[in-house]
């Protein structure tokens, strides 16, 4: 293989190594990624922050200082959206991870057909939120949706509802959908974590008079704790960002009961009768800080005080 310019001879290569980092190569490797990052991620973040201090109309930009933020504090819909999103983000991990844990333990215990189950349960995650939203909107349909049809078949007519049409049930109904979607995903991750546990430690627990419950509580749960907490954080962050599902099913209704911050930002930016991008930018900026702050807080609270080496 012929050597090429930058490291021409063995001596040259030695010199390059002795000098340390080949800066030319590093630049070449990082430049494309850096360009994309700066152009489509970093710059937009700053631009959005910039917007938040202005009134951004199609024809002109007008500096307004903290006016947008002041309005934000008084904006009831915004706070409703924040509450809805936080409720979603805080309850989802509870359901998604605990169901996943039960399922993962069942497969770990060598139930027959576990390869099939693992593949089947993972499928909801593969579907686009659009597809999921449409299907569940149909399932929740008052007249012929699967939920109400099933209830009527069981004679529980009084329990039928317009699930997505009533304020009290809309958000829980959507939370149910995301739980349906992500339980399988979490299960797969937890199963992998369970399989990575050293079998000798579990055998030692067996010899230390632990039945299956004892092993779970004293050995297995403590050792998969990092993964469980990781999934909780992932689930939390995912729900803080949620948009697609709500947009397809309820668009934030009825009466803002399913309004999430992402939906609100979209509406204010692209569907409001004033074309001001400044205010939604302020909302986005505040939300950005809230999300980052929550993740940092969670990470701090969940931090592993010492390494769990095994």
């Amino acid at each position, binding site marked *: 293989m012929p050597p090429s310019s930058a490291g021409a001879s063995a001596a040259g290569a030695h010199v390059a190594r002795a000098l340390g980092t080949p800066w030319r190569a590093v630049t070449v490797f990082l430049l494309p990624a850096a360009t994309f990052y700066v152009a489509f991620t970093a710059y937009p973040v700053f631009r959005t922050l910039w917007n938040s201090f202005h009134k951004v109309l199609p024809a002109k930009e007008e500096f307004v200082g903290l006016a947008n933020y002041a309005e934000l504090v008084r904006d009831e819909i915004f706070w409703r959206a924040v509450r809805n999103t936080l409720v979603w983000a805080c309850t989802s991990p509870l359901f998604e991870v605990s169901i996943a844990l039960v399922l993962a333990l069942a497969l770990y215990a060598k139930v027959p057909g576990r390869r099939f189950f693992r593949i089947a349960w993972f499928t909801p995650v593969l579907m686009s939120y659009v597809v999921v939203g449409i299907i569940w909107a149909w399932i929740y349909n008052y007249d012929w949706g699967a939920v109400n049809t099933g209830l009527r078949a069981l004679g529980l007519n009084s329990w039928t509802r317009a699930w997505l049409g009533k304020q009290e049930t809309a958000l829980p109904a959507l939370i149910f959908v995301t739980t349906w979607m992500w*339980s399988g995903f979490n299960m797969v991750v937890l199963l992998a974590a369970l399989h990575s546990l050293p079998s000798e430690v579990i055998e030692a627990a067996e010899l230390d008079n632990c039945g299956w419950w004892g092993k779970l509580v004293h050995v297995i749960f403590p050792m998969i704790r990092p993964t469980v907490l990781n999934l909780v954080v992932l689930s939390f962050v995912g729900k803080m960002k949620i948009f697609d599902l709500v947009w397809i099913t309820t668009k934030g209704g009825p009466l803002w009961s399913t309004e999430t911050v992402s939906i609100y930002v979209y509406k204010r*930016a692209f569907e409001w009768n004033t074309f001001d991008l400044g205010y939604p930018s302020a909302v986005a900026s505040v939300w950005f800080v809230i999300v980052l702050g929550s993740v940092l807080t969670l990470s701090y609270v969940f931090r592993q005080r010492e390494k769990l080496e095994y």
Partner: protein
Amino acid sequence: MHRLQRAVVLFALCVFTAFAAGPFFWVATMSLRTTSEISRDHYAWPGTLHWNKFPDAWFNSNYSTYFQNSLLVVVSAVIILTLVGAMAAHCFARYRFKLNRFFYFIIFSTIIFPPQITIIALFQILVQYGLFNSLIGLTLVYVAFQLPITVYILESFFARIPGDLFEAARIDGYSEMAIFWRISLPIALPALSTTIILNTILLWNEFLYAVVLITDEDKRTLPLGIQRFMGDQMEDIGMISTGLMIAIIPVVLIYAFFSEKLIQGMTAGAVK
């Protein structure tokens, strides 16, 4: 575990499987029935299999356009992502320089950013540069969007390649770029295929950026196209079902052949 316990557990698991996969099968059956058949009984098994609904939706309801747009955007974005991501990952993993971890952290941390913080400005930028409502603009945004997770997955893989291989190559006179092409990439093929599959699925299903940055009917991607049919009072359920299947089938095919890779890719980083 006693026999009875086992049977109960198995039964519960089967119920959950029906719960998890049921909706999908329901749509699959509906995609082969006409809307009038469906209106009569929503849950019946298809009497006659109306395979013609597929070409019908494809040609007459613009699904062909949506599918092609999605295909174009996703394939281009994934190709660019793989190259750009691999180069950056290789660089982070193999070279020691002062700000290495800092830059890596900056790129990696954007995974938790809510998209709202960038979407408004991206809208402005694309309009400003004439890339609004263009598949090119969307492709570029998609690349930036998936770059962090791609770099994350590939970096941990590149880091595990033994350094001796690179030393030997350098002694043999290879340039850094040649080392990347002839050593890093071929060895990293498993991880590369994982990120390719992952990115394909995630971008195929992506909705938010598409809905903001594309408004022209003939530029819509598949998720957008499907969404267009929703919300009418007289929903053509049969046709929408067929459309849904058109959107789902590529994903199912990939999953059928690469389920292990796909699962690994999507769960990468979640296991600690």
